[in-house]
């Protein structure tokens, strides 16, 4: 009996201890996040800030889903490529009558509740907030002043790029009316207390963009190294400034920025036909790399433009556009009758400018030296500088050994430059359509566009701008239905 008594005694004692022992706080403090880091960790070192930049660049080229994660992404909204190709097909030269991007090609994709409209808005504003987080975070660190300024300069350039892309989608060009409604501008990261801004004016948006880019070119390190060509360096910042000034018709600034931008980058005609998927190309100032494990797969431009691979293969070249190229032009990368058909069939010409790598590792082009030549030439032509034609011919003769200088001046030269821009930049970032907007030209589609899409829209048609996403109107107390675009 005594033995049993002690058994019970012991057992009860053990369990009594159990009651007591488990209340310590260490037990509850031990779990920690394993895949996320807190803001104080990111901004505790320059490497931490760099990691945030890397994350931003990666996000820009990702299979972007949606800012609230509640609806999936689409093949034509996968990051920067989604924006670029949307513009490409809105013009006169590349045609996508069916499949992904067809509604953009058809100019039937601007309503406030369409996902494309929502994507461009959300995607770029998400990027703006990330850049604001960096700027704000870096300002509060005790890094050396020079390091701080470089970080802030890069973030501000990235922010300017976002605003510039946004404002051109949701409002007519700067030259039409600087006092027209703009888009909300934020320079602080979103917090729990943040409230949406009003549309303000177009001028205010451009002031922000120019201020950011001016700061960037003043503070970025000339000749500074970068981890990858996805990173904005001083050349890219100048390139962005050149684009912005061209849009604003501030020709002197545009010219100077364009010249500064291409410093250290050369034209490489021999690589033009290499498929536009290699970031190492010496012409590329800015681009996004991809690798088999970091790719947007079938969202790549080649998926639509390259007809030799398994992809959507739905982009075609317009016959009138193809007719602009001489036989000896390295950019004349067109094939007739790949599928058969007559010259009047939209599928008569395909282009081989874009080639898909087997493992989807196609790099994405964002800015090239050639564009800077063209900006310089256009600015000079507008300024009446006599060597404008020479700058243009520098590019033309690089592309076509048999090129003959036209000798054009004035408007004829400008028109020639605009055609050259289409020829040089087709399929890349939508220069053709954005030039129609910028120069306030009508959109006139000719040649073998399908009858129903052979549009003739007047200059500054409201068709060219997107409506403000309904979600913004619903969630922003400072924007109402009456602020909506026509």
């Amino acid at each position, binding site marked *: 009996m005594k033995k049993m008594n002690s058994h*019970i005694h012991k057992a009860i004692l053990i369990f*009594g201890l*159990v009651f007591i022992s488990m209340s310590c706080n260490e037990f509850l403090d031990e779990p920690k996040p394993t895949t*996320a880091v807190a803001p104080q960790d990111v901004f505790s070192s320059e490497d931490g800030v760099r990691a945030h930049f*890397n994350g931003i660049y990666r996000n820009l080229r990702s299979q972007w889903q949606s*800012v609230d994660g509640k609806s999936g992404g689409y093949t034509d909204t996968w990051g920067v490529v989604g924006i670029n190709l949307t513009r490409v097909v809105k013009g006169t030269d590349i045609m996508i009558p*069916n499949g992904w991007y067809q509604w953009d090609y058809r100019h039937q994709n601007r309503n406030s509740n369409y996902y494309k409209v929502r994507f461009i808005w959300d995607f770029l504003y998400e990027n703006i907030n990330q850049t604001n987080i960096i700027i704000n975070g870096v300002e509060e660190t005790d890094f050396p002043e020079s390091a701080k300024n470089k970080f802030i300069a890069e973030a501000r350039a990235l922010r300017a790029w976002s605003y510039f892309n946004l404002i051109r989608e949701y409002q007519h060009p700067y030259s039409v009316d600087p006092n027209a409604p703009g888009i909300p501008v*934020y320079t602080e990261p*979103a917090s729990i207390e943040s409230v949406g801004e009003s549309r303000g004016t177009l001028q205010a948006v451009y002031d922000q963009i120019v201020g950011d880019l001016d700061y960037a070119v003043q503070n970025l390190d000339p000749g500074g190294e970068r981890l990858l060509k996805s990173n904005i360096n001083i050349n890219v910042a100048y390139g962005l400034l050149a684009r912005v000034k061209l849009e604003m018709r501030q020709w002197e600034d545009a010219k100077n920025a364009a010249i500064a931008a291409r410093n250290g980058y050369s034209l490489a005609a021999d690589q033009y036909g290499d498929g536009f998927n290699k970031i190492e190309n010496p012409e590329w100032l800015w681009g996004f790399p991809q690798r088999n494990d970091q790719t947007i797969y079938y969202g790549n431009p080649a998926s639509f433009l390259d007809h030799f691979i398994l992809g959507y293969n739905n982009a075609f070249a317009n016959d009138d556009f193809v007719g602009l190229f001489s036989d000896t032009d390295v950019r004349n990368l067109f094939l007739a009758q790949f*599928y058969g058909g007559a010259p009047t069939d939209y599928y008569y010409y395909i282009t081989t400018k874009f080639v898909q790598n087997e493992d989807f590792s196609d790099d994405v082009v964002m800015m090239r030296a050639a564009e800077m030549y063209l900006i310089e030439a256009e600015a000079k032509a507008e300024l009446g500088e006599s060597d404008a034609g020479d700058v243009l011919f520098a590019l033309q003769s690089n592309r076509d050994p048999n090129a003959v200088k036209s000798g054009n001046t004035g408007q004829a030269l400008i028109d020639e430059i605009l055609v050259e821009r289409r020829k040089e930049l087709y399929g890349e970032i939508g220069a053709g359509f954005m030039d129609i907007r910028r120069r306030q030209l009508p959109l006139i589609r000719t040649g073998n566009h399908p009858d129903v899409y052979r549009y003739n829209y007047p200059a500054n048609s409201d068709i060219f701008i997107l409506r403000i996403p309904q979600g913004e109107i619903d969630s922003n107390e400072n924007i109402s239905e009456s602020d909506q675009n026509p």
Partner: protein
Amino acid sequence: MIPTNYYLSMKNKLQITIMLLCCMAFVSNAQDRTISGKVYSLEDGIPIPGVNVVVKGTIIGTISDIEGNYSIEVPSDESILVFSHIGMIRREIIVGTQSVIDLQMEYDLQQLSEIVVVAYGTQTKQALTGAIGVVDESMIKNQQIVSVGRALQGTTPGVNVITGTGQPGENPTIRIRGISSINASAEPLIVLDGVVFNGNLNSISPDEIESINVLKDASASALYGSRAANGVLLITTKSGSRTGESKIDITASFGISNRAIPEYEFLNADEYMKLAWEALKFEGEEIADPDPGQYASDNLIDNLKYNPYGVNNPIDANGNLISGANLLWETDWEKELTRENALRQDFTLSFSGGNDKTQYFIFGGYINQEGQIITSKFERLNTRLNLETILNDWLKIGTKSAFSYSNQNFPYQEGLAFANNVQYIRSMSNIYPVYMRDEDGSLILDEEGNPEYDFGENQPGRIVNVNRPVLRPSNLVATTHLNDIQRQRYYTNLNGYIDITFLKDFSFRSNLSYEMYTYDRFDFENPDNGDGENVSGRVQRQKNITNAWTWYNQLTYDKTFGKHFISASFITETYNFKYEYLNAQKTGFPFNGLKEFNAAASLEDISGFTNQHRMFSLLGRATYNYDGRYYAELAIRGDKSSKFSPDNRLGTFTSFGASWILSNESFFDNVGTLSYLKLRASYGELGNNKILDKDGAEVYFPYISAFETGYDDLDNSGVFFNYLANSTISWEKVNMLNIAVDFGFFNDRLTGSVEWYDKLTTGMLFDRPLARSLGYPSVQENNGDLKNTGVEILLNSINFQRDKFTWNTSFNISFEKNEITKLPQEEILVGPLRLKEGSSIYEFYIEEWAGVDPEDGAAMWYMDEMDAEDNVVGKTTTKNYDEADRYDFGSALPKLRWGFSSEISFVGFDFAFLIAASHGGKVHDYDYANLMHGYNNMGYQLHRDILNRWQEPGDVTNVPRLNTGNSDVDQRSSNFLVDNTYVRLRNVTLGYSLGPTILSNSKVLRSLRVFVQADNYWTWSKNKGLDPEVNIKGLTNNRSSMFKTLSFGLNLGF
């Protein structure tokens, strides 16, 4: 781990007390003697076997034998013998000097099932003060379910069960008493054999379950504290019995399954071609082509890309099929991609039994159910050992251990992915072929003479029968077969306990439960066709391992003083949950037929992380009962959770319940036919700690703003700010009031209950939207109130009870109302829904369809009409969808649901059925909308309703003119909103058992039953094609649909 001073002193006190109590216990243990006797039924004097006879306050116990005899050793004259038996009134007898105690026991009509499993214990049904719904073994057995959650549908009032997919093995959505959260989880807590369950519900076999109890109110569930706000499902597995009998039971059934509701009806190929011509003719008119009919004829094949007739311009300028044009193919994609007569097999084997010391239940089960989509399948193997043994008169030990393996073949059947077979069926029109066709429409054969799958790709030099405008490149008939998608799950649960009885009134239990759950996802894309083609095949493998343990220690004190009965429990519980995720992806398979990582060349992705959650809790419960008339219960749980910042870590949840059994009062003796009457009320607070992120995944550190890793730019590691936290985030709290009456009439032949509840969620987590341009969508706040109120009625009747004929019915009905009572802002738009004070959380707020203009066939919607001051003065129509305004259209939540079931047994036959119904919920049928695109999606499938389209001025119809432009006719609007009222015959079972007289000749066979079961064989709904069990929010998403199943089976008992 250093105990605080407070605990040290407590520990000392406890030690001393316990030692003292132990000494007393063993002093009185010294004088054992034997009592024997016989137990009879009071009504007919027949001996009762299987009566539990226990010395109160000990585990000394025995069971009466087949003659009703028992014999037991008792420690002293003061010992009390407790006699209990299911369905009979429990008796307590003081031994005194007697050595023979014969006893008459009385049937207890008030107790349909005596013991009810509750949080951390059991109670008699009489003593309940809370709201508990019970689904017992027979209700589960009568349904052919794969996931046990479905057994709750129609059988328990207040529980909403929506299955939403035809993939076997998927768990239904279960909501108890409305929906008490918007942005945190609304899932009920699942407790398996007393411990919170962290596996997948589909790991549990319905055949190993004794009962599922649904804890619905605060009194019943407060002991689960911060996890109980959405209600609790207590699943109890079977155990053996102490009657001395050993049983072997075998069940085998075999069945076939088919769609419960037929697919939407589609156009046939001829119709599709002719209507496409009509759409193009309108296009020609719009661009002022001189001969629109000819324009359409010329452009038809150019638009559709495929020509199923093999002749040029098969539709002429007048829209007629030219002579000699005959269809060379017409594909029924539903037939190609779904199964008819999917097979179901279900086998179980169990051994159960025991003696007065030990009871056991050993179970093995296997189920194999094919799904609706080709290759879809679920296979599961379950084993279980439940064992309990009494070691001596103060110690009992037990285990409940299970292992389960399942494998799901899971071809995609939901969402927007190309690979979704259901979307595919509803996208590909009949004019597209399964196999490649040449210009003339003849099959293209490979070198071996076999047809080749058509992926709709481009081919150089070809313009007809290539370049399909629909879901290119893809062919799911090929890839669903050639790809391999598996979901394997391994679940192990080891649950052990020790019960110690000491003194007369104390008992102690220590229970340790360990779970390991492995989810193994395997996705293989074949190298020859489809998504894997470009990369020579791809394999993705994901392994998620959940390790969890819960240790609780429970000290219970029970004491009766005269007519007062007191019970109190004190419990500590420690919970540790760890989830490890590992995912990798490789491409490049040089050899066909290989699918493992080693055989693949290049790494495409690898990622991993760990989530952890820990809790420490102190619980207490006290119950009091006076004379079987008045009951009261108080429960408190304090939870500390690692999910919240140290400042907000502690949550305390308290509830109080009381009941009064009026029918046990003396004044109640002559109240006509009313035989039982009980009033119940409870009030208390519950919590919800399952905070979800914007993708619906559980957040483990909701108070920490975070940069997510994994955003690497090539080899440079990157982070991205993707969680804007509110540092003060805390639990959601639910305050719940429950008032109920339980009643019985005609000697309890008719019993039932009526319950009313009011459930108020406060500090509700809200994703308060930020302006979209802020670049961050929303921020979480505890800043909202939500109210769920409802009435539940349950009626059970024994219509007939004779030796050879019994007939029981059960009816339940629930009325529910969900209302937001406080929002952080005036309104919040979430997709097609609007959150607003005063309306439900799933309130449709969408564009209003205004019909079709008979003049031009254009679709119209309503928009607000404004006066000069921008005030809304009415509404007018618009043909521009972008101008349409949104209006309220009611809730996706049903207003009421009911279930009706009946069981009849007659001579050897048994017959049972169950009907479940839901009234008043709305569904926005996007799937149907997509089928009414009117050729703005050229080549995509169309519903037959498109035949009613507007054709010429004056036509009055609801289907707009065909239009190849971006016409918005298929956009969200009230046109596609339907009333989802339905009535479904969930189950019918007919069985025949061989009678005991026949079996008594057999030495081996104890019982034999053959049966036929039919599930979901009849559904009434106003909607065609749409399965009513679609989604709790009332939104379709191209999901596979429910099955009807017909099975034949056999039960054998040895």
